[in-house]
């Protein structure tokens, strides 16, 4: 299984490196000039309709979708992460690994401004998405979340029918078109359609955990996001359900970018193109623990030839 994703990694990497050399990422698809102040909704609307806007060919590969610069997060006075500078490639899968409490979820929540919802959380630095700083004052976090989907660790379907679960996103963002079609398309993309097409009216709570998680993925896909953020999406699932979701991710990768947090090294190796290793650092006073990025590279390199000793110890299971 590993070889399949590794070969993909190598082909992607050449393009990725070239775009990393550029100081400013080119906006993709959108007619946005760097430096121009743009409302997200404009960026968003120009990114609508993937089918037209971003073809599923290799065009655009190697472009940067997220460019994070010196991101830091405080919960009250406790600094959870600092100096996180990572950029993610368009239509790549990036894995975030590291020991518990090192701030992977915290960082992931910066990417769609979910940290805004935590009282006392403060985000510093820049999260540049398609050339636009998501933390600029003119940005509406609700609009950000419309474009950047998220799947949580524990499946969290709404206590409603399968249909209503999927239709919720398109309804609140006011998507045009036939709702039945939108729901069917999302469930097909979530690899769930065949299993549920005859019981769309049933309550989602009656599904298995694995089905619920795929429903949550389908639900996130229904609004046609550009990026999917996944926080340990398989940690509550059995190996078969996990395998399904991993297969699903490699299909989704054709069209969208994925950032996944995982504690499962094999999973990171199987699904991701690039991997960032986070670790906790003790402050000088040995009291506060802050997460930092130790190493960020192609997944193959991280797992076979890491340059940092701590990375090696972690991926070989010596700690964490």
């Amino acid at each position, binding site marked *: 299984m590993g070889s399949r994703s590794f070969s993909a990694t190598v082909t992607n990497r050449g393009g990725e490196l070239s775009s990393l050399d550029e100081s400013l990422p080119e906006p993709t698809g959108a007619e946005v000039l760097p430096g121009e102040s743009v409302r997200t909704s404009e960026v968003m609307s120009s990114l609508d309709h993937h089918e037209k806007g971003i073809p599923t060919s290799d065009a655009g590969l190697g472009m940067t979708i997220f460019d994070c610069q010196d991101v830091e997060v405080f919960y009250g006075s406790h600094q959870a992460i600092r100096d996180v500078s990572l950029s993610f490639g368009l239509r790549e899968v990036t894995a975030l690994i590291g020991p518990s409490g090192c701030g992977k979820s915290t960082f992931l929540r910066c990417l769609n401004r*979910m940290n805004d919802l935590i009282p006392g959380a403060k985000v510093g630095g820049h999260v540049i998405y398609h050339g636009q700083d998501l933390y600029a004052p003119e940005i509406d976090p609700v609009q950000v*979340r419309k474009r950047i989907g998220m799947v949580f660790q524990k499946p*969290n*379907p709404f*206590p409603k029918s399968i249909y209503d679960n999927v239709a*919720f*996103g398109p309804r609140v963002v006011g998507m045009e078109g036939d709702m039945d079609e939108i729901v069917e398309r999302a469930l097909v993309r979530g690899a769930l359609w065949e299993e549920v097409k005859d019981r769309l009216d049933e309550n989602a709570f009656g599904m298995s955990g694995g089905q619920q998680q795929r429903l949550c993925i389908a639900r996130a896909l229904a*609004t046609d996001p550009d990026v999917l953020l996944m926080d340990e999406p398989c940690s509550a699932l059995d190996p078969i359900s996990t395998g399904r979701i991993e297969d699903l991710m490699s299909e989704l990768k054709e069209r969208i970018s994925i950032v996944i947090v995982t504690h499962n090294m094999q999973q990171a190796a199987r699904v991701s193109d690039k991997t960032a290793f986070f670790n906790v650092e003790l402050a000088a006073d040995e009291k506060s623990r802050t997460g930092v990025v130790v190493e960020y590279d192609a997944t193959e390199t991280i797992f076979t030839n890491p340059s940092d000793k701590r990375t090696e110890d972690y991926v070989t299971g010596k700690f964490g």
Partner: protein
Amino acid sequence: MTGAQIAANALEGIRHGERKRLAAQLFNGFMYGAIGLAFLALVALIGQTAVKGLPGLSLQFFTNFPSRINPSTSGAQSAIVGTVYLTLLTAVFVIPVGIATALYLEEYADKTRWWNRLIEVNIQNLAAVPSVVYGILGLAFIVRGPLGIGPVLLAGGLTLGLLVLPVVIIVARESIRAVPPSIRDGALALGATKWQTVSRQVLPSARAGIVTGVILSLSRAIGETAPLLVIGAASSPRFNPSGLNDAFTALPIQIFTWTQDPNPQFVDQAATASIVLLLILLGMNGIAIVLRNRYEQRW
């Protein structure tokens, strides 16, 4: 150590348990005794009410107005209609205000602010205030004073509304709090606004608990006598309230009036009216239980 010794050692603890079991049995007996006593009192009360009141329970009791002179043509129409109107009025007042307050406190209020904490503590305290105090409040502010609308139906509804509002707020808050945060995160992560999340996910998920709580609160309001007496509900009116600004009475008031009557036949009418009131309460609580069992969301 022989096998017998081992067995004896092991069993010692078990025999020790016998004393404890005796204590437990005594305590159990005490509890059943207490429950039995309470139950007996209830049965005696209901039994006596039934014996006195059931003979008077006829269609005429529902269609006639209360008489001061002739018990055989007397009925409780104005009181029953008054109770129904009062309940509806209380509901109209308390449901929007109660749910909106609960939503504000649970979903929007910043709990680190002192005024929000003050509101919270106040609501808890208000729920424990005796009902007669609400009657005084209604008399001073609604019947007289600033509103000054007189002892009319609207004043009764508003007073009972104030009385049950804290309870409705507390019950609604509990139902809203029972909705897991992951539901809110899920909706917000899909690009829903705060209000869309609250109105389309949180509130519908909490609906069963809120409705049950509202019904139970209203059934408390129905049984209240003291505040209505204080604000000056009419006694034995021979007419139904024809509008919000009309005099009114309610079943507990009518029962109270009849029990004060020197004629024992009117006292029996009080028992009949009590049965009607009990049936209404049982019906409402039954509806609340059915709704809760059918629609309660388990997480």
